[in-house]
């Protein structure tokens, strides 16, 4: 019988070193007595011996052995267990692992079952420590503020749990005292110390504040005592300052809920008025008659008939005079229009402006608007790429367009692009085929179809572009003549 001594409790590295030496010598686990002190044991007929590290180093290099990662992870936890024979259990498993690779699948085996349950218990204990540790401030030991905590873990988990607190609180000094070892973090140095048997008495101002906070976030209407108990078992209550309040809060909960229910009606907060205004605005939408263009623009701004309003910055209303004879209808606002809130101010708008100038049309004399009032796009990186409006969206927006026509009463409408033409007349043939032709709306207002200026920008071939430009110019000129007749 041979006695091996582990000097520190739950020190995985020490156990690993000792176990490695024993295994290299091929010592059977029955002949080893693992002890945590140097005192001679009843069965240890040899005096405990500590291995001489220097002698062993040469030996170590020649012979190595491998264990599965699962075993290492488990051993690091199991060694922390409070049971004295954990070291022996682990060595037994390690010894068997040399001949039997499937050992972790043999869950009926008592050694494996015990090790697994101990691992689980230790992990749970560490988890609890993370949750139920409470720090109080004490006079500083170094440069920084210092905090102290007292905790009573079931197992020797200080070394396993310390890195968590080190990561979490590395901008202050702290010490955690427990009956199973302590850990001190002062001046950015982490040291493990002696166990502390007695709970230190100290309270700080924060405790009262924390208790006040805790009692205020308690929701009496959602009281679930059983769940609360299972998540915060009573064994931890001793070290939690807020735990004293729990019983009181539970007993008063029922009455508090009752009083909340009985509380009289209070006047709504101020922001309700704003919400109500918004609702009124949306109610504007369903009117069948609008007196002025301002009236209709206000309604368009709060339109939510189709989902486009969710993504666009704002609705882009029509612009121009109500007494205009000529009305220009585009497709839908683009990126720049969406941001500016005005129709035809982007690149396509510039093309239109230039052409209109050439043929002698002034913006102030016409009414210019879009078939769809909101910008539809898809994001590509930081850019918002224009996307064609769906039939459904066009049909929803037709409502506004028809009301605008009703108010402006133009002699001629120029529909630029397929979307505008479809919205006005219901015709959906390609513009290239019907460019320059005149159709009519339901109310018999003539509609001249032409290209959309954005389309002109997109044509790649120089010659074709010139041709289309000329055709567009011709259409506008024709429109001006027609209106001035």
């Amino acid at each position: 019988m041979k006695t091996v001594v582990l000097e520190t409790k739950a020190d995985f590295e020490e156990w690993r070193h000792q176990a490695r030496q024993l295994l290299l010598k091929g010592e059977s686990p029955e002949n080893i007595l693992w002890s945590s002190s140097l005192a001679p044991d009843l069965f240890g007929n040899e005096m405990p011996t500590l291995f001489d590290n220097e002698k062993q180093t040469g030996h170590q290099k020649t012979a190595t052995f491998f264990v599965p990662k699962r075993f290492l992870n488990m051993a690091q936890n199991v060694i922390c267990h409070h049971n004295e024979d954990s070291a022996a259990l682990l060595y037994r498993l390690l010894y068997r692992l040399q001949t039997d690779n499937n050992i972790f699948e043999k869950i009926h085996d008592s050694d494996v079952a015990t090790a697994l349950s101990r691992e689980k218990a230790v992990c749970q204990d560490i988890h609890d420590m993370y949750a139920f540790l409470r720090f109080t401030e004490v006079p500083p030991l170094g440069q920084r503020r210092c905090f102290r905590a007292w905790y009573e873990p079931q197992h020797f988990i200080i070394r396993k749990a310390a890195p968590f607190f080190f990561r979490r609180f590395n901008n202050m000094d702290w010490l955690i005292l427990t009956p199973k070892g302590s850990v001190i973090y002062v001046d950015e140095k982490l040291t493990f110390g002696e166990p502390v048997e007695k709970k230190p008495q100290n309270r700080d101002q924060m405790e009262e504040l924390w208790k006040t906070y805790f009692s205020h976030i308690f929701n009496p209407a959602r009281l679930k005592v059983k769940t609360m108990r299972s998540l915060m078992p009573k064994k931890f209550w001793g070290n939690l300052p807020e735990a004293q309040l729990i019983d009181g809060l539970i007993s008063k909960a029922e009455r508090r809920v009752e009083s909340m229910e009985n509380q009289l009606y209070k006047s709504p907060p101020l922001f309700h008025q704003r919400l109500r205004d918004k609702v009124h605005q949306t109610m504007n939408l369903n009117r069948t008659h609008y007196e002025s263009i301002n009236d209709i623009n206000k309604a368009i701004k709060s339109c939510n008939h189709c989902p486009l309003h969710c993504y666009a910055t704002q609705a882009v209303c029509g612009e121009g005079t109500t007494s205009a004879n000529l009305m220009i209808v585009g497709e839908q606002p683009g990126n720049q229009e969406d941001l500016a809130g005005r129709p035809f101010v982007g690149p396509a708008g510039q093309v239109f402006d230039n052409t209109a100038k050439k043929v002698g049309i002034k913006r102030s004399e016409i009414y210019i608007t879009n078939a769809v009032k909101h910008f539809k796009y898809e994001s590509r990186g930081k850019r918002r790429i224009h996307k064609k409006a769906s039939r459904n969206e066009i049909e929803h927006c037709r409502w506004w367009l028809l009301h605008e026509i009703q108010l402006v009463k133009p002699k001629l409408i120029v529909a630029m692009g397929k979307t505008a033409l479809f919205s006005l007349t219901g015709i959906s043939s390609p513009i290239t085929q019907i460019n320059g032709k005149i159709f009519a709306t339901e109310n018999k207002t003539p509609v001249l179809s032409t290209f959309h200026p954005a389309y002109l920008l997109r044509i790649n071939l120089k010659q074709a572009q010139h041709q289309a430009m000329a055709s567009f110019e011709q259409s506008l000129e024709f429109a001006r003549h027609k209106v001035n007749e």
Partner: protein
Amino acid sequence: MEELTAKTNDGMLELDFDPKLAWALNNRHLFPIDINKADKEMLLRVPGLGVRNVKRILMARRFKRLDFEDLKTFHIGLNKIKPFIVAERWTPKNLLDNADLAERFRNRSKQLELFSS
């Protein structure tokens, strides 16, 4: 669901037993089940064996024939499953055919009458 309520009159579940136990008592001809040989589907039908324990049994029986000691290490309640399984060194003999088997499992606790006169 149909399977569970097939033998009852009104299509309701039995109140005295849990559904799995009630099904097992009504289908005794399928039992006992040998836990060392039966497939997963049959093991899951044994009252007292849940998904987790069935997985453990399937894993462990690759290495040895399981007996009651092994079931104890899995924390399986033996009283309930005893009549329905065959294990190493265990057969239920005529326990399964016993007329008062259902009586043994019957829930004896009774809700007290609140307004009893």
